[in-house]
């Protein structure tokens, strides 16, 4: 194995240049002020203070977290049964279903999201159908509903595939053993299947929560120009306001929040396992 050790170097260089250096730059920008050219350092906590002491920004932060949590919960509720049903089929049918689930991701995300604007518009597809039944146009666009719909639509495949993978990897003889010992199907599911598929659910939650809490293009397209989320503020600080220091500080705050929430999710997962172990 030793002779392969050298092969790690390209990856190390890659991750240093592409991950570590940008992170360090964000750290540097977040704690300094005065301009985007790093010629002199003026260390300050001004950027953090500005974000954390302003009610408007904190409201935006709360809204982003709420939208992300709602998106994630809906994805779990829709994704788990889907994955469960798919995992029951024969190998051939399974592959077909997985293909169908991942099919939309072949098309660019922006294009797919843009299509929703045509569907949800006041004179769009849904409202035309409603109109045919004499129902007045409903304002779908530029609402929480539209944004959450867009996010669930875009991120659901990640959830389904994660749960599906953990369900298919599961040892089916455990369920047989459980029912041999007298567990009814419901008990089999809650005591065997669900705990064993939790790693899939957890990584699914990670894959859905992370992009939805920081997304800026879906809120922009389906929520309109004044539907502000944290991702939108960060984007505007870098692209239009040109205040990279403030933008970096918000990115850092978000990174910390995400790390904490990931840590809690892991803890909850482990805690459940421990509990299961002591009960049995």
């Amino acid at each position, binding site marked *: 194995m030793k002779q392969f050790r050298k092969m790690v170097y390209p990856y190390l260089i890659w991750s240093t240049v592409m991950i570590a250096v940008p992170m360090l730059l964000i750290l540097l920008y977040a704690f300094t002020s005065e301009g*985007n050219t790093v010629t002199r350092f003026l260390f300050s906590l001004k950027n953090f203070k500005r974000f954390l002491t302003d009610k408007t920004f904190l409201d935006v932060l709360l809204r982003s977290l709420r939208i992300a949590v709602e998106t994630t919960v809906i994805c779990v509720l829709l994704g788990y049964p889907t994955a469960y049903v798919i995992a029951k089929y024969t190998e051939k049918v399974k592959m077909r279903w997985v293909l169908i689930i991942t099919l939309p991701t072949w098309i660019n995300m922006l294009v797919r999201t843009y299509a929703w604007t045509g569907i949800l518009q006041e004179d769009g597809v849904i409202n035309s159908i409603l109109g045919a039944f004499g129902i007045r146009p409903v304002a779908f666009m530029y609402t929480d509903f539209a944004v959450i719909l867009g996010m669930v639509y875009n991120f659901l495949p990640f959830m389904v595939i994660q749960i599906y993978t953990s369900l298919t990897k599961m040892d089916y003889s455990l369920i047989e053993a459980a029912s041999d010992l007298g567990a009814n199907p419901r008990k089999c599911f809650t005591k065997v299947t669900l705990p064993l598929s939790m790693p899939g659910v957890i990584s699914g939650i990670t894959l859905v929560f992370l992009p939805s809490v920081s997304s800026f293009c879906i809120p922009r397209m389906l929520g309109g120009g004044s539907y502000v989320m944290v991702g939108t503020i960060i984007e505007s600080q870098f692209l239009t306001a*040109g205040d990279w220091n403030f933008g970096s500080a918000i990115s850092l705050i978000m990174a910390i929040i995400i790390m904490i929430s990931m840590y809690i999710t892991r803890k909850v997962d482990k805690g459940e396992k421990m509990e299961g172990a002591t009960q049995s």
Partner: protein
Amino acid sequence: MKKKNILIAAVMALFVFCMAGCGSKEKLKIYLPGEYMSDDLIPNFEKKYNVKVDVELFDSNEMMYTKVMAGGKYDVLIPSDYMIERLIKEDYLQKLDTSKLTNYSKIVSDIKKAPYNGYDPEAAYSVPYFWGTVGIVYNSETVPSAEVEGKGFGIMKDTKYAGKIYMYDSERDSFMIAFKDLGYSMNTSDENEIMAAYDWLVELNTTMSPTTVTDEVIDGMAQGRKDLAIVYSGDAAYILSENEKMRYYTPSYGTNVWVDAMVIPQNAANVDLAYKFIDYVISYDAAMSNTEAVGYASVNSDVLAEVTKEGGMYDGNEAYIPRTGYDKDEVFTDNEFLRKKLSELWIKVKASQ
């Protein structure tokens, strides 16, 4: 061994071939706002001079500024007046030799006069591209003309129309309508006036549930989805030509008049071709197809006369020709204090909805 040599030779040949292929045509890189040029202008220019043009689009002047300052290199930029003023101040643009432009004498004389030319008084750095005003487009069937004329931009805060208005997603233009409605100059440096305008906009956002968009306003109003919208005159001209119920109004207490112009950065790679491009854009044929497609007022006086004469494409279109010689109208000037204040407040205005 021999095999390896052949492989190397093949790779080298491919490399040389690619170099030759890529270098055969001169390249021009331009950076301009979205939905702001007729689709056939670039292909025609490419054909005429046998060159390749790379086009990049921006959403706002501020976005363009951030990108070029972060090291983006272009041969021609098309920013707005106040941004050009800032770029001149920061010594980013080249001085232009207008004698190299054969069509320069055709530029409409109104734009060369105050207040329009404030950003570049000697016309030393820029060649106008389009010009216009900012006003209100309203549906004349649902909104009485007298009401719009009486209230000016204040009608955007009339709760009768809550949920039926489009605001334009730009800090400069949104603050401009607030300043004008409050009776201040749009170039104020007075902190109290700026905060009053901020409150004006927050109140609008919390009471009117506006839909804040950029180019979506064009289709939205042409389809009649809302009753009122803040629109640039050129987009308004297009909307009016598509939907006859729509009308355009510029408030009597004045509005913003503006010029967008072509400039060449000092770090441009292909200056000669940039001159050719600018000259081509203001030539009769190109300017004609451009104004017909986009709807903004042409800077070429012959074209302007042609499309507004009886039977011309924009004959009777009240939004097409910008208001001139009205002393309550103002152009934006570059003002560092105001600029910083607005970018700080704007995200909060948007988040207040």
